């Protein structure tokens, strides 16, 4: 009886834990697939990644990512595989080499160039503007002078 009770106890604890372990594993795979798929561009869509795209090719690419994740390939290996098939075009984030540097640096170059131009223009505008003349009050007439004098003498 005690033996049967022990077996039942073990089964009670073992089953829920094995089930939980499976759910956790699947979630990890899903997360990894999503993380990788979001970095790969759908090659038949425009500016959409394969995770968000509804195109059949994107769906097949997601499956290919999942298969490779299950096989134990790293995110970098999977990205490299897709890159070797489609080139830079498939990467949502263009790899930093060659002409791609232009994409990475252009915003900073434009910001810096724009800033310099703006500063130069403002400086030139300030130097070119005529200086306001000092206000010289017109001389007081005799009547006003007398009036002021009277007021002061009071």
């Amino acid at each position, binding site marked *: 009886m005690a033996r049967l009770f022990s077996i039942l106890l073990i089964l009670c604890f073992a089953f829920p834990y094995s089930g939980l372990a499976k759910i956790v594993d699947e979630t990890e795979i899903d997360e990894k697939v999503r993380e990788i798929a979001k970095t790969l561009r759908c*090659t*038949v869509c*425009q*500016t959409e990644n394969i995770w968000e795209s509804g195109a*059949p*090719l994107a769906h*097949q*690419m997601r*499956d*290919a990512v999942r298969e490779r994740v299950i096989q134990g390939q790293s995110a970098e290996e999977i990205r490299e595989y*897709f890159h*070797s*098939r*489609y*080139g830079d*075009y498939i990467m949502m984030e*263009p790899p930093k080499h060659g*002409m791609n540097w*232009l*994409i990475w640096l*252009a915003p900073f170059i*434009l910001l810096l*160039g724009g800033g310099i*131009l703006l500063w*130069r*223009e403002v400086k030139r505008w300030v130097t070119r503007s005529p200086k306001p003349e000092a206000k010289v009050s017109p001389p007081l007439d005799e009547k006003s002078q007398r009036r002021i004098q009277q007021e002061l003498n009071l």
Partner: protein
Amino acid sequence: MTRTTQITILIVLLGLLSLFYQGLWGDPRHIPPILIGTKAPIFEGPDVESGEPLSSKKYQGKVILVNFWASWCQECKVEHNNLLKLYDEFKDHPEFIMLGINYQDEMPKARAYLKQYGSSFPHVRDVKGALAIDFGVYGVPETFVIDQKGVIRHKWIGPIVGDVYTNLTNKILTPLLNKSAPTI
């Protein structure tokens, strides 16, 4: 700001804008294929008509023309007669092999298509789209030429019609089968 500086800035800005436009909304069909000059993937799958497994391994050492197609693809219908003609032209050469790869399709529809439009060379079914991804395919039709060493020597996106057909047969297949470099 001088006039020259203004024009230079305008040209730089327009250049950057066109690059961004091309990058974001450009047609991927015009992107130069990176697989040219690389080893072709070895592929296998069920034969569309017989269902028997078919592998490209058994054709190693031959010039293989691979054509991706689908029954729902209009441009595939446009080129189909030319593909049959091309196969007839080269089929007697001992080093020539032609394979179709049926892409994103349903087996009954693919079979009906081949029955309706004719079939003279074998077709492999790309069950999960894995073959298409291996070949870096964007859509159908797409045609690849693999040389005797298993290297991809040519890729064409779109139907094989008109000058494309002539260039493919005269400037790529004929020189490769004569063991010389393609002239394109």
